[in-house]
């Protein structure tokens, strides 16, 4: 099967601070290197899980793929079309096929609109439906996400967090997209509600034949929902491959440290060697030279401090960006 989405060498930097005067004088602005040369592919019908800690650039990547943030360079091919080169009208048409579910169901819904209005807006904007057909489609979508017809006339504040996230999902899916970026869709929810939303997303994926980019900092959730995973650190992907393979036998020292840090309900990791990372994430404004992970890596040597590591293949699907792969691996 070919990839539905192919991202190659995507770069997104932000200018920060500096003020207007230095900018007008043409002084060099400090730049946050949020996404720095990311390549990935997602096959139709699959879920790619994107794991990373705050500030690693995973949300920026998700938004840059939809051009909600304009990428600086790189290509994004969606169903054979390079999305980056599209003009506004063509991009609008493309957006029907690519949607996003946001993390915060409190901030991402307009408090002054009823649920029916929120769900009708995309249909009206794209001229997909009007009148009774529009209403029918809104009601069908509400039912599909587990809400009832009586919810249509209510406002977002009348719902719980889990129900609001259902509304956010309904809004993303009402245009029948093929591809959805799920940006931390369960992180703001209570544990018992998280599972409801994870189940719902899985069912909708099956029923509507969706392809997901699922972004989360929760490795267990990513492992549960994903076919493939990519691990991101400071704007770059350091390891990717089939979910089970990567999470059962993580290869990159960062992936291993990340998994080692997750508290386990069954204390399953007891007896396993624990890897503790010291220090904080370095600033993405001034990332370390060479391998970006080297200041926190127990295996770092001279070459890691000087040269960016190459991409190495463990097998056809599983790749690792590390100088010392595979010799430091157990």
């Amino acid at each position: 099967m070919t990839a539905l989405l192919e991202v190659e060498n995507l770069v997104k930097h932000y200018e920060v601070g500096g003020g207007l005067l230095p900018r007008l004088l043409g002084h060099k602005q400090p730049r946050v290197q949020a996404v720095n040369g990311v390549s990935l592919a997602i096959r139709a019908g699959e879920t790619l899980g994107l794991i990373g800690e705050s500030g690693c650039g995973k949300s920026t990547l998700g938004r840059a793929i939809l051009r909600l943030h304009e990428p600086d360079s790189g290509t994004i091919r969606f169903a054979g079309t390079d999305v980056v080169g599209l003009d506004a009208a063509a991009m609008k048409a493309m957006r029907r096929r690519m949607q996003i579910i946001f993390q915060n169901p409190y901030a991402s819904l307009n408090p002054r609109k009823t649920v029916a209005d929120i769900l009708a807006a995309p249909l009206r904007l794209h001229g997909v439906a009007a009148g009774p057909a529009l209403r029918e489609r809104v009601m069908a979508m509400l039912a599909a996400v587990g809400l009832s017809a009586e919810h249509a006339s209510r406002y977002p504040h009348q719902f719980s967090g889990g129900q609001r996230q259902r509304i956010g999902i309904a809004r993303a899916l009402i245009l029948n997209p093929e591809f959805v970026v799920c940006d931390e869709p369960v992180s703001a929810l209570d544990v018992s509600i998280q599972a409801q939303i994870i189940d719902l997303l899985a069912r909708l994926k099956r029923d509507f034949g969706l392809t997901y980019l699922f972004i989360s900092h929760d490795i267990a959730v990513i492992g549960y929902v994903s076919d493939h995973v990519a691990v991101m650190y400071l704007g770059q992907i350091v390891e990717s491959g089939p979910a089970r393979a990567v999470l059962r036998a993580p290869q990159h020292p960062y992936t291993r440290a990340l998994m080692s840090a997750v508290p386990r309900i069954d204390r399953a990791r007891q007896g396993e060697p624990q890897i503790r990372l010291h220090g904080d994430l370095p600033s993405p404004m001034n990332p370390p030279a060479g391998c970006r992970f080297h200041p926190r890596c127990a295996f770092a040597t001279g070459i890691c401090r000087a040269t960016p590591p190459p991409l190495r293949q463990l097998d056809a699907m599983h790749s690792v960006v590390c100088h010392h792969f595979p010799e430091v691996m157990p």
Partner: protein
Amino acid sequence: MTEPLLAINDLRVAFATPHGLVRAVDGVSLDVRPGECLGVVGESGSGKSVTFAAVMGLIRPPGRIESGSIRFDGRELVGLDRVDYRSLRGRDIAMTLQDALTSLNPALTVGTQITEVLLAHAEDLPSGRHARHREARARAIEMMHLVGIPAAEHRLGDYPHQFSGGMRQRMMIAIALSCRPRLLIADEPTTALDVTIQAQVLELIAGIRATLGMSVALITHDLGVVAEYCDRVAVLYAGQIVESGPTASVIGAPRHPYTAGLLASVPMLSNLDRRIRPIDGQVPGLVDLPPGCRFLPRCPHAAPVCVSTIAMRALEHDRAVRCVR
């Protein structure tokens, strides 16, 4: 058995709202024993934070402690006057809050905020003004070293916004621990942090607990954190404790359907093929609740008897459950 350090008995806290009286804590009894780490688990609105706000004497109108008792080292805290409370808070009992950025004063340096606690509570500081401040500063630096803040002596003059999230949480823990309290209440200490930083902070608390012989009440929604760091656990649901006992036995063989439901609803890294099973429905509103089991509308084992008042009942091996099954 040794006397508990903290003994909460049948505590009821209610908040008057336009919609009616919200019974946020409705008959909670729990103990924190000397030197132990008690995990307090519950979702939003379960009453876990309000219970410990009551311990700290932080319930303000429209909230009110309606009845019950909170004894710390044998001394009753409900009804304690403000002056006595002030001498207790920070010195014997300290609390860290979830969001370190909004809990620290943005207009004061962290050095001022940590020495303030020492100057207010530490009894063994020298008497001269300069000597007092010098000693408080030295202890502040020592405490910052203990929580792993690099170059502490240079960072005393920094403001909270100059610290990263993990460092701010450490700073708040340093302030809480500065007078070596006997009980640390840690309210979601790592919820805002990334897993690698979370591991550092939790191990820090565990290490200091062992060194200082302190008791810890760890409030969290993360069962993994409880499993790894707590000796015993109390599970709260809608203002009541539904299950308590030694962590390994509660997590290994939960007796309350809510505890079992929580455990079944989280994906496990060590067994990704296990299907997760959500708990249907939602947490009930806390106004005008019927007398029966609060989990009844969501419970797969609901029976006619569940509509009557269900009391906590003791089981073997230090366990207790609020369920008739």
